[in-house]
């Protein structure tokens, strides 16, 4: 076995023509734009690999770069497409993220969000009727449907323009503050309640060797606290459009303040958005989200989304002190029975399921939708959440967990 083990020789850089290193830098930029976490060291390693013969065959270089630059499964899966597109000039078939946000100002589903964000907007909660008659013709001529439809709406919704900036800032601040309160309460109560101190014999003996083994100073053990983890699943479908903006701000606040929180967005598919939401700057976070939320404004497949969650994410994100918070109106355009099954599976895993339904506070609302009927038996707390006030009302409940 030839164990070359050469440290990356930077003299090797000379062999790489200037052109290639320029191209490599551009490739790294492309990868970074697509969410790869790549540092300087990786760039240097890549250059030394190219200098040492790996660039001779595209397949080999692709495989080597794939290992070097990928850091998680999602990177792993999209790498080949990106590599081929960049180096071999093939078209990427997967919908990889384009740079920058698109102009979505004249996007009808966005328009509905803007209108809906006004307090007390009387817009009907778009239903699952897949009729296109009530879809106003879009101004931009893009022919997208208003409200919910079975067709996947691939609009790139720009969440930043949901409402006027002042209102967004206000909502965000309130939500962040709320999240902060929840977090501190939880920790303090937890510490005060658990007094499971045990003597750590091993360390006590170690510490007291200088006293000839006579235990003078004792070392104690304290149970490690697991902070409460909050997992938010937000329905970003058309029927929820009037509330999405506020909840996105809330989630951003929650992720900012809770050490352990995860956020998912769903409509016809499920998207893991914690990464995008962890951006400190709210506006930038929402900007990144607009890329992830392609399809918002289409129908809602809660059951299928939950199935994806249970299958791929639940084991990783849920632990014994997890609360799953689902924010949705429960209008399911898919299979309601599937939703019931997946809710049951989810209930087995986590400590509590909180379902927030903004429509609940509406006058004359009854949980008639098939989806919510199927889900209700598995929910621990079913509460309205149409105002920040009702969100605040949740805090004592979460604090008790």
């Amino acid at each position, binding site marked *: *076995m*030839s*164990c*070359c*083990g*050469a*440290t*990356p020789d930077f003299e090797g850089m000379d062999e790489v023509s200037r052109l290639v290193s320029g191209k490599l830098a551009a490739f790294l930029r492309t990868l970074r734009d697509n969410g790869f*976490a*790549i*540092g300087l060291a*990786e760039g240097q*390693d890549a250059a*030394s*690999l190219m200098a*040492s*013969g*790996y660039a001779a065959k595209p397949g*080999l270089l692709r*495989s*080597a770069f*794939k*290992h*070097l630059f*990928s*850091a*998680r*499964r999602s*990177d*792993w*899966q999209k790498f080949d497409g990106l590599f081929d597109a960049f180096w071999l000039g093939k078209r990427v078939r997967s919908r990889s993220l384009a740079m920058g946000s698109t102009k979505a100002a004249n996007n009808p589903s966005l328009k509905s969000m803007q209108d809906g964000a006004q307090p007390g907007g009387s817009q009907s909660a778009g239903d699952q009727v897949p009729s296109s008659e009530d879809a106003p013709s879009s101004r931009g001529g893009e022919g997208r449907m208003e409200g919910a439809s079975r067709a996947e709406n691939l609009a790139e919704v720009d969440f930043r323009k949901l409402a006027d900036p002042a209102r967004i800032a206000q909502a965000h601040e309130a939500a962040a503050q709320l999240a902060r309160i929840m977090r501190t309460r939880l920790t303090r109560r937890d510490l005060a309640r658990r007094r499971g101190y045990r003597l750590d014999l*091993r360390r006590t*003996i*170690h510490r007291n*060797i*200088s006293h*000839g*083994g006579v235990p003078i100073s004792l070392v104690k053990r304290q149970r*490690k606290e697991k902070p409460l983890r909050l997992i938010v699943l937000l329905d970003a479908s058309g029927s929820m459009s009037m509330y999405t903006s506020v909840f996105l701000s809330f989630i951003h606040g929650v992720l900012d303040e809770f050490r352990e929180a995860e956020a998912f967005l769903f409509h016809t598919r499920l998207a893991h958005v914690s990464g995008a939401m962890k951006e400190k700057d709210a506006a930038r976070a929402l900007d990144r989200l607009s890329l992830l939320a392609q399809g918002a404004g289409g129908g809602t497949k809660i059951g299928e989304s939950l199935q994806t969650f249970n299958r791929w994410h639940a*084991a*990783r*994100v849920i632990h014994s002190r997890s609360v799953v918070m689902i924010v949705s109106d429960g209008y399911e355009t898919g299979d309601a029975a599937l939703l019931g099954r997946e809710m049951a599976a989810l209930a087995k895993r986590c400590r509590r399921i909180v379902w927030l339904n903004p429509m609940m506070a509406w006058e004359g609302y009854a949980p008639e939708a098939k989806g919510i009927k199927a889900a209700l038996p598995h929910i621990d707390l079913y509460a309205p959440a149409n105002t920040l006030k009702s969100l605040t009302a949740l805090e004592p409940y979460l604090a008790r967990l």
Partner: protein
Amino acid sequence: MKDRDEIAQALAASGYIADSELATAIALMQRLRRPLLLEGEAGVGKTEVAKALASVHATELIRLQCYEGLDQSSALYEWNYQRQLLAIEAHRGHADTIEDQIFSEKYLLERPLLSAIRRGKPPVLLIDEIDRADDEFEAFLLELLSDFQVSIPELGTIKAVSIPHVVLTSNGTRELSDALRRRCLYHYVDYPDVEREARIIMARINGASASLSLQIARMVECIRKEELRKVPGVAETLDWAAALVGLDVRDLHEAPETVHETLMCLLKTQEDKVRISREVSERILGKVA
């Protein structure tokens, strides 16, 4: 690249049938001196990679199994307290010399991480299921993996004699930090395709003929496509193949009863068992040529 093919051959000789991408990863691991992070479903053979790597290099495999609450004293080093106490008792009255004595190599217990960096010949260090360890341990590991030196307050800094080949595995029960991921080469271990799985069965199970191995691999592939709660991994396939060979099955079509009854090697939950009923298993068997 020459070393890649060599590695693939050496792995095959040691009983691990690798795909070409994994061979590249191992070649890179040596060239760039980076740890290799393996992710994938349970039972796809992540741990086996490290074992095969150790036999390729003809070196020792040092394994650190991670779990919640794993700390420095069980991962890195610990003092042998009992012995220290004994020494104190035995040398009572020589207080000035005793302290130097009891904090010497003789009283140091090496744990996997320390012993991995003190071997003359670089061993393979397998850090198994890193996702089960706490965040704090992960941060500590990151430091060790970049400097390859350990400081023991009573003894001073211990530098690595040789840099071990580090393999980390993760099942994805927790999200790993970006820093650790960036530091490592990444390889996603997927379920093998039919042909490779058949080769794995032949390499691992004595008495499995080529045709039977292929049948088993095809059947398992079909079963994986069913909606199961726990998708069977390669380890389960091998169990099943061993069971079939042990029961003298030469051809799956000759013994549909046995096939169905031994499916418990593959299906590990009640729900999955109900789903793959006798009819379903016969239907799948029918599809397997």
